[in-house]
């Protein structure tokens, strides 16, 4: 049997140092693009590469980053989720209404006693997951395009957020709730810790569990996955549920960060999150994508937002620069596939 592997090794490989470097760059294109961006920003502004600012960037990117983690897995299954920003908003108002200080004059439920912080947290995660599960059920059971199912949820969840809050912010939240968005542990902001933990969990889910292998397989070839004995519908629902769960967590973090639930929150976050995943190399044709890529994609967006603010680039020009750099980063990354033909 030895000859099988031998045959592979036997084949002449081009192993000059240069080739190796080239293939390294092309394989990790987006990481190099990210490092290039960081070097550029540091050169342009001394405050960029300080601990405070780095924590700023990660903290600011947490909500989009959390959403992007879920969306990565969803896109890997060949889906899409447009509803995350709206789900975030819905979660933020509901959770906030359960975490208001009792003496606040505009309290949503005046008679509600002060609840332990676990109540709004569980409510948030449950609502997020439920919205995700509904997305998943529609996609899996009716076969409608994920674009439409989640577009529907995007509109409906935003409407629900507005109705629930009557279009008003739900403010003055208690301190233990605020900790989720503003607290620190050993000097590291709690949202940052949360994001790192969730990124790790997502990585493990995707690479070390059946769930992840099935996600890849469904995205790679759904028919084949089905014939291989995968309960495609079940796993699709789970994937969207996880996406909703993360959107819910993002809603929690963001509302705690500003100490207020708002029905207009998270507008267009889904686009930024999808962009982060796509920059990170997730393929919309399904079956391809990594968590580490998405994290870098989110950081690129975060660095751009932060760096352009630091450099005091005019708001109008920021858009042009941001749009161009996102495209440029992906073009740079793409060259790894350019050799294909």
């Amino acid at each position, binding site marked *: 049997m030895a000859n099988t592997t031998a045959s592979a090794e036997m084949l002449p490989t081009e192993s000059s140092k240069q080739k190796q470097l080239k293939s390294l760059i092309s394989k990790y294109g987006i990481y190099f693009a990210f490092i290039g961006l960081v070097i550029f920003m540091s050169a342009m*502004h*001394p*405050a960029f590469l*300080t601990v*405070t*600012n780095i924590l*700023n960037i990660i*903290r*600011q990117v947490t*909500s989009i980053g959390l959403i992007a983690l879920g969306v990565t897995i969803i896109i890997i299954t060949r889906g899409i989720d447009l509803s995350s920003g709206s789900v975030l908003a819905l979660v933020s108002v509901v959770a906030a209404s359960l975490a208001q200080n009792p003496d*606040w*004059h*505009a309290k949503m439920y005046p008679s509600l006693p002060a609840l332990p912080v676990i109540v709004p947290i569980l409510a948030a995660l449950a609502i997020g997951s439920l919205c995700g599960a509904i997305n998943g059920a529609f996609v899996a059971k009716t076969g409608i395009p994920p674009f439409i199912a989640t577009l529907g949820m995007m509109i409906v969840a935003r409407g629900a957020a*507005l109705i629930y809050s*009557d*279009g*008003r*912010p739900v*403010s*003055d939240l208690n301190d233990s709730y605020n900790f989720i968005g*503003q607290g620190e542990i050993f000097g590291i902001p709690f949202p940052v810790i949360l994001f790192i933990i969730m990124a790790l969990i997502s990585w493990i889910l995707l690479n070390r569990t059946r769930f992840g292998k099935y996600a890849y397989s469904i995205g790679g070839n759904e028919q084949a996955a089905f014939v291989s004995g995968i309960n495609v519908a079940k796993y699709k629902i789970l994937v969207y549920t996880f996406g909703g769960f993360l959107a819910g967590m993002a809603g929690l973090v*963001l509302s705690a*960060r*500003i*100490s*207020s639930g*708002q*029905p*207009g*929150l998270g*507008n267009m976050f889904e686009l930024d999150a999808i962009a982060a995943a796509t920059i990170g190399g997730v393929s919309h044709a399904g079956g391809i994508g990594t968590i580490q890529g998405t994290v870098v994609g989110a950081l690129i967006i975060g660095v751009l*937002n*932060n760096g352009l*603010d*630091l450099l*005091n680039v*005019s*708001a*109008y020009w920021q858009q042009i620069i941001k749009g161009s750099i996102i495209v440029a980063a992906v073009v740079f990354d793409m060259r790894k596939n350019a050799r294909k033909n």
Partner: protein
Amino acid sequence: QQDDGKVKIGVSIASFNDTFLMYVKDAMEAKAKELGDVEIVYTDGKEDVTIQLSQVENFIAQGMDSIIVIPASTDATKPITNAALKADINLVYVNRRPDYLPEGSYYIGSEERVAGEMQARYVAEALGGKGNVGILMGPLGADNTNKRTDGVKGIVADYPDMQVTREQSGKWMRDMGLSILENWIASGDKMDAIISNNDDMALGAIAALEANGMKKDVMVVGLDATPDALAFMEEGRLDATIFQDSKGQGQASVDTAYKLAKKETVEKETMVPFKLVTPENFKDFL
């Protein structure tokens, strides 16, 4: 007038995501209840004047007696105005004054620019006419963003030692105000005052300043006097905001539209002025 004898009024509001406008809507609802024989339809313009034009066309198709519009853009109201006038339906603009206001159309509200000027004047006086100002703007290209920002810049230009060093759009959102301020603070640039196009972004700015222990060095001025903002002021965290009389505007608009439908005569323009709210007088606005 409809068969059931009720006065039918169609209202197109620039955006349901604008907290202030929601209070205007509250006041309209209250007034309608008070009048009794009024039926009002509210629609959300989603910050888009073309959507509002569609809504007005729909109102005309429905045979409304009067139409109230809080326009998303005051520059593009001509087709709305012409459509309503052509259909011989009473038209009342509220809160944002269009330049094109021919015979048969009415206005209730104030001049947006003035609010920005009041903010800047208050800051200039408090800082003794010198210092660096950062402006938090609403969505780029939005009408009230432009007018309020213009107002601020106009006043700042009057003081040679004062300058606008930074400006950025926070799209009305508190979380964006917070992030922008975090970045500005990280840059290390000296900043003496933040003037925000609305309250929510100002409250976000305050959170960032407080987290960095800089609140005492930088004054923050908002606009709208929302309950959240007044609460911040009560706690001594917000320096000033501008009160726009949502109640006055809302009630006056329904009142005017109602009277027009009843063929009564009304003022062509009713001004409801802005008021500066500071820790000294905020209790009047709670």
